[in-house]
């Protein structure tokens, strides 16, 4: 087995080191992007690169904005309850 094959196999058989810190929540960004891309690929009647990128970016941006708004609201609620 070549070194490249061994390295590839090893990277899929050992988990990554991810801590339980707030930064680990950033893993949601690629997932949100994947959901947006597949959703738009199934939803658009005709796919042109410019229109596809524009619509996908708009949806991705609106998802992230709403997540930030909800996070801020929950943070504010938590602050009100605990202070």
């Amino acid at each position: 087995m070549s070194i490249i094959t061994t390295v590839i196999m090893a990277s899929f058989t050992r988990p990554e080191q991810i801590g339980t810190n707030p930064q680990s929540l950033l893993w949601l960004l690629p997932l949100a992007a994947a959901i947006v891309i597949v959703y738009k690929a199934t939803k658009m009647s005709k796919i042109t690169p410019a229109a596809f990128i524009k619509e996908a970016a708009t949806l991705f941006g609106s998802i992230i904005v709403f997540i930030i708004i909800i996070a801020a609201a929950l943070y504010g609620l938590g602050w009100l309850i605990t202070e």
Partner: protein
Amino acid sequence: MAQRSRQTNISLLLIVGLLAWLVPGAGHFVINEKKRSIIIFVTIVLTFCTGLYIGSIGVINPGEARLAYSAQIMNSPIVRVLGQLTQTGAYPVYGRPNEIGQIYTSIAGLLNLLCIVNAVYLAHLKKTGSTGD
């Protein structure tokens, strides 16, 4: 004559659905939606592989994580082979990598389920000549 046409239509829809499950995007490819199929294939395979990279193949656990496995199996039948590999307990994974890996691979499976339904729907529209708007 009409019955034969209806049977052909149903078998076409079944073939499209089955292909879309075997290889993400293949359902769209056979109905001549090549751009869609490339986007779907690249995105779903990348999402699934990212999940496996983060949590290792141990995130596919048909024994203990049945709910996640039922979503993961929608990626492709290959997941079943990986599930049999991990049932030996040789690839343990716990904590945050397990959670994130399972979420990524499950979401990839559910996205492929959406694409299977969409491919069958588009094949039906093309066969009947409707626009679907």
